[in-house]
């Protein structure tokens, strides 16, 4: 392991690997990535793999639609040996209350103004897209055919391989245990395998970003929360899009492999606990067999859990802080960090290297100081 680097990235999830790659691709090759387990072993490898552009804030829309462009070309751009398995089967978002219908109308107007050509649908139109959807209590839906999913392990691996080829050092099974500062600035990182001196640390530690910030003495307005998910046996393809309900707090998609993956938001204590529960299995089954009745015949193969790291406005925290010079943050993805990792990498790299980027206003808007200033735009459409 190097003992000196221009930038140290903490976290070998999709976000850390994307940032490392974009730093190197922009000429900053003296970069070290530190990962306590293996690549994508954190939230990235536990996530629902969904890539959606139908969001309710301008920032989330722009981050996700820019990232979707990247996913479309990723195998080629990163010259990946495998396949990131990006598949655009669309997302069907379903509304069950008048309040949700109003929100969806606003969302579609915003999305359309940003080049995301989502459509507002009647229940019958929704049923044409997902014939097995129970539309009994449904009031409306929205659909965008360019939403979809990609394989989180392969996306992370693709960024990591490309970063390594450009000279980035990636150290797995290496745990950060401390951060060294002097006169309000970063001077190094301590790991269980030795120290690295560096003027810049990127906190991309996902559900443990709060722990890393604590090591640096930086206070975050965020918390971690368990989210559970399950997968069924594979069956012949019969559901094109992801189906998502903010009313039931659920999402469900059929993977390219044929299995159905579904998850649900629950009321959870804050923390880093990721045990699976029966209660989830039960409630998930109740909800999904009601929303998508034929799924009742599918056998559950596995269930697992991972961490969301949430901010007060459900948008990530990106960039620097006045609390500590050289401490850069890409955290608080609030359950959608996989799908916006490509743009996050581009913008973080440009910001760290002082380069121009046409979307660099996003970095200003998503700086952590927004919480002190108030005046937040809260993302209404999360599970």
């Amino acid at each position, binding site marked *: 392991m190097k003992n000196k680097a221009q930038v140290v990235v903490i976290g070998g999830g999709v976000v850390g690997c994307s940032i490392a790659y974009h730093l190197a691709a922009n000429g900053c090759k003296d970069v070290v990535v530190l990962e306590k387990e293996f690549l994508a072993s954190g939230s990235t490898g536990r996530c629902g793999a969904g890539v959606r552009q139908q969001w309710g804030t301008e920032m989330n829309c722009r981050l996700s639609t820019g990232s979707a462009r990247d996913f479309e070309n990723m195998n080629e751009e990163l010259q990946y040996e495998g396949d990131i398995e990006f598949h655009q089967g669309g997302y069907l978002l379903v509304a069950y209350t008048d309040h949700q219908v109003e929100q969806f109308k606003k969302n579609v107007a915003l999305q359309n103004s940003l080049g995301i050509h989502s459509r507002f649908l009647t229940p019958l139109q929704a049923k044409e897209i997902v014939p097995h959807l129970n539309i009994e209590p449904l009031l409306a839906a929205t659909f965008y055919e360019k939403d979809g999913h990609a394989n989180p392990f392969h996306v992370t691996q693709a960024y990591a391989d490309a970063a390594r080829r450009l000279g980035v050092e990636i150290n797995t099974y290496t745990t950060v245990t401390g951060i060294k500062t002097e006169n309000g600035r970063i001077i190094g990182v301590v790991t269980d395998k030795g120290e690295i001196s560096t003027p810049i640390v990127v906190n991309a530690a996902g559900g443990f970003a709060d722990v890393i910030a604590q090591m640096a003495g930086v206070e975050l307005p965020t918390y971690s929360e368990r989210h559970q998910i399950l997968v069924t046996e594979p069956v012949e393809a019969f559901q094109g899009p992801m189906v998502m309900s903010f009313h039931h707090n659920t999402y469900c998609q059929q993977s390219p492999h044929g299995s159905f993956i579904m998850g649900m938001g629950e009321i959870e204590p804050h923390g880093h606990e990721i045990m699976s529960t029966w209660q989830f299995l039960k409630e998930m089954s109740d909800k999904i067999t009601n929303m998508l009745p034929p799924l009742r015949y599918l*056998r559950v*193969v596995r*269930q697992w859990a991972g961490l969301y790291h949430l901010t007060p406005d459900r948008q990530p925290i990106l960039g620097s802080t006045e609390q500590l010079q050289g401490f850069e943050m890409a955290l608080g993805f609030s359950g959608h960090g996989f799908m916006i990792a490509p743009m996050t990498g581009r913008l973080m790299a440009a910001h760290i290297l002082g380069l121009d980027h046409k979307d660099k206003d996003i970095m200003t808007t998503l700086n952590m100081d927004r919480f002190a200033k108030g005046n937040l735009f809260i993302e209404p459409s999360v599970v």
Partner: protein
Amino acid sequence: MSNHEYDNTIICRCEDISRAELHKWIDQGLTTVDELKRLTRATMGPCQGRTCRQLILQEIASRTGVPISEAKIPTYRQPLRGITLGAIADMKLDEEGKPHEE
């Protein structure tokens, strides 16, 4: 045995993963069952790795020269065999929150 035949030996039958495919990833530095599982789907089939986990450990050991006794033991999740979403939905939960059939 020719090299070709050797490479195409299937190690994980459920997911149809060959020795060549596993070696490709092992050579790229993925030297635990957990990592290989996530990139290749090996051990994720209906038998949940009962047939192939040991074979994969052997492949890692022989390819990397690190004995199995020193290998990282993968997280083993009990397969939830045979339970359908419908059967779970039809169950009632007892006071402890555990489901039991009607």
